[in-house]
């Protein structure tokens, strides 16, 4: 699985670039690099469904980001060489939090079943029932639309909600009085 590690390093590097670079357009494109490496990692962990969705969603996300930046400005005005005390304070708090979180999660992950050895208590039943009772070749489709169809209704509703939300927020005038 050496490819997975390389891609993870690429994703982390691109993530740091996306956060730290001055030009917002470059930042959005670095975000695209992270998204596409995540998509390739999905292929490596045998999740082609996820990879397809991740690629198309990533394209759309980058388009929206670029659209917003082109409409407004692409220069990060908050990016300065000289720092204020407040910035150092925020970084200090973050460093403290990061170390704490990393140690806690490292200790916690030791108790998980190792990478590549899932328990699959329910999943093994799903794989048999999906084949024999639902007759779906793609087991992920069987899970999202039959066993857990109600979740997918929720998912579609989330998207509907955010579309209506975007249209609401982009109204020109809110109050008439």
């Amino acid at each position, binding site marked *: 699985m050496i490819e*997975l*590690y390389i891609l*993870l*390093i690429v*994703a*982390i590097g691109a*993530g*740091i670039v*996306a*956060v730290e670079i001055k030009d*917002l357009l470059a*930042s*959005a494109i670095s*975000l695209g690099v992270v*998204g596409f490496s995540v998509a390739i*990692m*999905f292929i490596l*962990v*045998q*999740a*082609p*469904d*996820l990879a397809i*969705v*991740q690629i198309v*969603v990533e394209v759309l996300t980058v388009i*929206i*980001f670029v659209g*917003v930046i082109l409409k*407004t*400005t692409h220069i*990060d*005005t*908050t990016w300065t060489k000289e720092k204020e005390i407040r910035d150092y304070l925020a970084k200090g708090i*973050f460093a403290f939090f*990061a170390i704490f*979180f990393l140690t806690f*999660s*490292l200790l916690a992950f*030791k108790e*998980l079943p190792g*990478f590549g050895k*899932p328990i*699959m208590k*329910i999943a093994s039943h*799903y794989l048999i029932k*999906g084949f024999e009772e639902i007759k779906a*070749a*793609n*087991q*992920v489709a069987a899970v*999202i639309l039959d066993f857990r169809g109600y*979740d997918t209704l*929720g998912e579609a509703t*989330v*998207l509907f909600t*955010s579309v209506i*939300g*975007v249209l609401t*927020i982009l109204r020109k005038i809110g109050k008439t009085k």
Partner: protein
Amino acid sequence: MLPYIGCIILFLIGIYAILTKRNIIKIAIGFCLLEYAVNLFFALIGYKKGSLAPIYTQINQQRNFVDPIPQALVLTAIVIGLGTTALLLSVAIRLHEKYKTFDIKEIKRLKE
């Protein structure tokens, strides 16, 4: 174990952007990184060594598959992430229109 730690580092980069950056677009990018990290972590959980994607084919009737449930859940999570990003960016456009800046230090009209 190692891939999990990579995800946590990506997660922390996202948190770093949200906590320390003052630019709204950078904060939105931090959110995207957070989402990717959690999604990737969830997908990695379902991976089983030496197994195939959970799709039956006519040629290969082998039944050694990875766990399909995390994939279904991550699919939902990706869509939710797209929705929240779109909403955050639409607020960002409106804020830029009203204040002519992305700096959250200057967007401060509500006080204690």
